[in-house]
């Protein structure tokens, strides 16, 4: 109890601590978005012709599309011409080893607590698992660790621009297959201007020897980050992938529009965990990241499995629906989510489970916590195709309201075309009861610590799905995000 107490105190006594900016020289693409910007990015990456054509096709399509307005979000019109679409830390030469990395960038990641060096163990814990990191700084990947060890296992873990150069056939085969170019407004924009991101390929029967991780950092002012992640798990493969993100505190809103595609073949399993902690803006809603993300997994093979776990605490606006297309027989989709909103944050997040395969199953556990003057919406779709016999789905959406100025909303869609499906949906909305608070406080916790403790308990089902390294960070985050929301 004593240690918990200390942790809880520590948790609530901090503000957004990743809000510093790093002062380094950077190369920018000219401000604004045009075909020239797209060509600039492509040329900068030294991409093959097909990739440039692919981008231009997406850009032309994007011009004809409208920004979606169905989410329960109020966003002022975004001026897409008032942003930089490419920012790169200036480098004199290509670096031969990690030691040659710009010390400023290295310090940034050290401050964030991200192990860029290939440390044997994390945080001094004996026997902890190793984590390979791909660090993406604004528009480019600056470092990828543990390459040799992964290569020995046959795992390809590269920034996506390197992968386009080194494994063009593999990338071409899968890029845009799960999230088509014209899927939605933001995915199309991403297809045109994506700068970097991560590519992972785990070959047949390989269990990836360590956790893979990408750490996204927006640093430059007025810059949008558009990363693209593609993970392919071949037959019988397993990979666990973590993603973290932070940004400096700035008064303007910055755009982040990412696309993540996952493919799981027969008997493969992908576990994808996100701790999203973009700068959420201040308590009056000034600044913060607009986070528009399209994440989708294709469970193509028999018995394939994809598990999404997300802890969403940052961003001024979150628009994100990690989805599973369960095409394979007996494939499994899981979605565990904790979304915390405070102050003026708005989150519209949830999942889509598209059941196409016989005997496919899905589980959705969503915990929404709203505080301050924020709005938190769960929006989910469970669809069962006529051919999908014996589908099972269980959905649970719980909302917790802290304070009387916030909103919690639940918008589940259920579309069933096969009678053998068993679909269950449950939802509750509650607040922290006086009894719970009184109990915790009578044991010596102050009010904020008590709230942090109860909130962590509320979100426990999701937090325990996270890999250990992330679970600790996520728990801390929950407390910080809710700071100042009670009393």
């Amino acid at each position, binding site marked *: 109890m004593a240690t918990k107490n200390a942790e809880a105190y520590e948790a609530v006594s901090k503000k957004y601590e990743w809000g510093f900016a790093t002062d380094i020289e950077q190369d920018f693409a000219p401000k604004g978005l045009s075909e020239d910007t797209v060509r600039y990015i492509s040329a900068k990456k030294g991409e093959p012709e097909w990739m440039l054509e692919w981008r231009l096709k997406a850009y032309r399509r994007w011009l004809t599309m409208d920004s979606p307005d*169905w989410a*329960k979000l109020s966003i002022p019109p975004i001026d897409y011409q008032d942003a930089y679409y490419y920012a790169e830390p200036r480098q004199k030469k290509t670096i031969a080893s990690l030691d040659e990395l710009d010390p400023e960038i290295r310090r940034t990641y050290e401050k964030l607590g991200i192990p860029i060096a290939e440390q044997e163990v994390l945080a001094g814990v004996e026997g902890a698992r190793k984590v390979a990191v791909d660090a993406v700084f604004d528009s480019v990947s600056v470092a990828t660790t543990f390459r040799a060890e992964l290569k020995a296992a046959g795992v390809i873990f590269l920034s996506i621009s390197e992968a386009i150069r080194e494994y063009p056939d593999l990338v071409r085969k899968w890029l845009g297959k799960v999230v088509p170019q014209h899927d939605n407004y933001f995915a199309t924009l991403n297809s045109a201007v994506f700068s970097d991101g991560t590519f992972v390929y785990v070959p047949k029967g390989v269990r990836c020897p360590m956790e893979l991780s990408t750490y996204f950092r927006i640093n430059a002012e007025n810059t949008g980050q558009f990363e693209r992640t593609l993970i392919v798990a071949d037959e019988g493969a397993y990979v666990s992938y973590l993603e973290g993100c932070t940004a400096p505190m700035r008064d303007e809103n910055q755009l982040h529009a990412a696309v993540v595609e996952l493919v799981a073949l027969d008997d493969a399993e992908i576990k994808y965990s996100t701790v999203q902690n973009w700068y959420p803006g201040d308590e009056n809603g000034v600044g913060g990241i607009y986070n528009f993300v399209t994440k989708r997994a294709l469970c193509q093979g028999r018995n394939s499995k994809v598990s999404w776990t997300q802890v969403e605490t940052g961003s001024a606006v979150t628009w994100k629906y990690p989805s599973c297309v369960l095409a394979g027989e007996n494939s499994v989709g899981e979605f565990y989510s904790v979304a915390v909103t405070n102050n003026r944050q708005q989150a519209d997040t949830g999942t889509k489970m598209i059941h196409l395969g016989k005997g496919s199953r899905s589980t959705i556990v969503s915990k929404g916590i709203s505080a301050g003057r924020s709005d938190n919406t769960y929006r989910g779709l469970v669809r*069962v195709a*006529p051919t999908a016999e014996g589908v099972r789905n269980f959905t649970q959406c719980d*909302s917790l*309201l*802290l*304070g*009387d*100025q*916030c*909103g*919690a*909303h*639940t*918008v*589940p*869609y*259920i*579309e*069933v*075309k*096969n*009678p*053998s*499906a*068993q*679909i*269950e*949906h*449950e*939802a*509750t*909305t509650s*607040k922290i009861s006086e009894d719970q608070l009184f109990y915790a406080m009578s044991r010596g916790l102050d009010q904020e610590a008590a709230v942090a403790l109860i909130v962590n308990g509320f979100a426990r089902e999701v937090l325990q799905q996270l890999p250990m390294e992330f679970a600790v960070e996520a728990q801390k985050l929950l407390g910080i995000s809710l700071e100042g929301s009670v009393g």
Partner: protein
Amino acid sequence: MTAVLDLPSTREEAWRWADLGALSAAAALAPVAAPAHEFLDLPGARLLFVDGVLDEARSQLHRVELTDLPTSDHALGRRAAGKGWRLSLDARAAADPVQVVHVATGRENHLPAHIHLGDDAVAQVVETFVGAGWQNRHLSVTLGKGARLMRSVRLLQPAGFVSLREEADVGAAASLVAVFLGAGGQGSRIDARLTLGDGAFGDYGGALLTAGEQRQECAVRVNHAQPDGSSRQLWRAVAADRSQASLAAAVEVARHAQKTDGEQSLRGLLLHRTATVNLKPELEIFADDVKCAHGATVGELDARALFYMESRGIPRARAQALLTRAFVNDALERIGDETTRAAFEADADAWLEASLSRRERSVGSTAPRAVEILPGAEPTQLGPLGAAEGEG
């Protein structure tokens, strides 16, 4: 027909499952002879509208009057403008039931209505839709403090479309209960918005039974504008063949509407693998001391219940029929008046009987004859519509 074109598109969230293309098709139906209609054996006012026009010879107005009514700004509601019927009761008044039968003989007709109950007044309204064509209605309801209104609406058109737009303002401690049964062959959209006052009670629910290529949907939003209100939304959908039944029910709780108690239960039953049930139990909550629960399930009949009944010697077809009937009756049992409830249950039974016997035939088993499947549903109870509907 051009009027139909400016309806919202299905890209708008509130109209996602709407079948607005069916409106023009319904309106294009050729005129048919006015079908037989039956008033229930209840005292009180009887209104017969043929193509939206009152048939005075066969109506008894009692306290109901015909008058010009204000228009709505809703996409469907605003079409039903002009002259309509109005029931207005003073404080503490109690009226005999009002029965309204809407007969369509093809094409389209639009009719507004208004119900106003003074403080503590009590009323009951039963509406029936028959015939063919597109019938569009707009109803506005205002209930004074402590007033009570019970509505029962059945859609029994063999073809065409019925669209209802209802806007209700339920005063403090007042109660509005509305039960809908869609057991005809028509398409439908039941589009309603309730605003609940301090301590008010709102209950909107019903059963939508679809077969063939039919599409029926409800889109009901209950807005808790004041504290201490409670609402119930209990909907059941049974979909056969290639039909689609959609249930969208929303509860909104305003910032200061503390102690709200909202409950939603949406359940769908699929009789064939080509049918579709869509559910959307939506919560929009801005107050922190509320109790809102929703449950939603879709599937087929409980295999264990079926097995249990079969093990007790009940033939499979009949066990299915009994369970389906129980499933539907959940939604109908809240009709307070016994005569009305019995009539609604008989309509639902007639539909189930027609649909289940058709299913047995299509499966090719040695199903008992239709009348034997449901012991309670004698053909005499079905009326002319039940028979007509069975052929569709």
